[in-house]
């Protein structure tokens, strides 16, 4: 099935056709939890890309040695190791406010079904190169989706983008932020509306 894809398609299929958030609805917990600001979403996206590429690489490399009956525990241990590395690196190099915003959702990448899905559905029975490209593509698609969601929520909820106000200060009217958008209800509403728009405008041309 996947053999008909060119290598370039292996990356781009994750953007729309097999978009992790809007089409497959995987990895929803971090999607909603960390999209209160664009910075947090990009940091989360980088973490997911790193874990996905590395775990796809290792799983694909060892796919002939992992017995089928215990493959899921093996995947989980491999993913958990990379999540721990990302966790430690983030704690060391990212500013504390981003770490506070990401909170328990960095260790929770280990139960992100988007990553386990790629391990099970792709890396376990595909070649090394393709698995790495697939992890990169699906990870990038995930990052783009959550960044879009975060940009909308941050712009409406705090009136800023990447922490800079998007309404110029010379503008005569002050922007009054709808703070519900950066609270829990706004996350569900924004994702529901974006998913509907995605179905309306993008899904048909890909299938």
């Amino acid at each position, binding site marked *: 099935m996947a053999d008909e894809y060119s290598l370039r398609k292996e990356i781009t299929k994750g953007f729309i056709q097999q978009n992790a958030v809007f089409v497959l609805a995987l990895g929803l917990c971090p999607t909603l939890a960390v999209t209160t600001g664009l910075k947090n979403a990009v940091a989360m996206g980088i973490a997911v890309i790193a874990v996905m590429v590395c775990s796809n690489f290792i799983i694909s490399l060892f796919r002939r040695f992992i017995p089928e009956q215990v493959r899921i525990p093996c995947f989980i241990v491999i993913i958990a190791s990379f999540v721990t590395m990302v966790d430690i690196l983030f704690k060391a190099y990212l500013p504390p406010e981003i770490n506070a915003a990401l909170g328990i959702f960095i260790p929770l990448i280990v139960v992100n079904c988007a990553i386990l899905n790629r391990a099970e559905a792709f890396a376990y029975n595909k070649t090394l190169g393709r698995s790495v490209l697939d992890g990169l593509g699906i990870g990038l698609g995930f990052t783009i989706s959550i960044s879009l969601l975060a940009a909308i929520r941050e712009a409406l909820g705090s009136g800023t983008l990447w922490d800079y106000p998007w309404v110029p200060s010379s503008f005569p009217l002050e922007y009054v932020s709808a703070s519900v958008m950066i609270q829990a209800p706004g996350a569900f*509403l924004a994702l529901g509306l974006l998913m509907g728009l995605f179905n309306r405008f993008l899904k048909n041309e890909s299938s």
Partner: protein
Amino acid sequence: MTLTTVLTISFSAVFVSNFVLARFLGLCPFIGVTKKMENALGMGAAVTFVMFLASFVTYLLYGLILKEGALWIDADLELVLRTPMYILVIATLVQLVEMFLRARVPALYDALGIYLPLITTNCAIMGVALLNTTDAPVEIRSVAETGFGQGLIVASWHGISAGIGFTLAMILMSGIRERLDAADVPAPFKGMPIAFICAGLMSLAFFGFTGML
């Protein structure tokens, strides 16, 4: 530990910081298994049970191994070992529960059977383990500091409460979705998008509990 603390922890886990609607944990079953009321109830019961067990076991391991100064090893075990340790404990626990139920309580196994394997990758379980130990909110941390036994009790109680909150959200959502089937929804919004918008409105309602604590 007073009765007020116990009630505060429960009320907080069920209403104020509901695991699904405020903390965004366990969204996959919340969207995936709420098309029918009885399935939602089965999943809720299974998750509550595993949450209680996982809270108990992970707190025990945290106190005996991971916590700073628990072992004579000069390393930050909390940061290095928590992720692999918790996920392995939860995966093993789910497997054991499945085997036990199949052998001893076949009726319950038939009712919960298909949901049990899904629970391993339910982030609400791992979430409750983390929120009991390394990332505990103030009300849990303050009790846990008074002693290991107290901490163990409060962690287990928090696990049960979080499970009840999860079950409540599942039941409410399945009730709404059973009615949505008959509703006239624009085609692109059928299924998941409208479910998320409903969840948003539910979350807004639960948001009203914030001022109560």
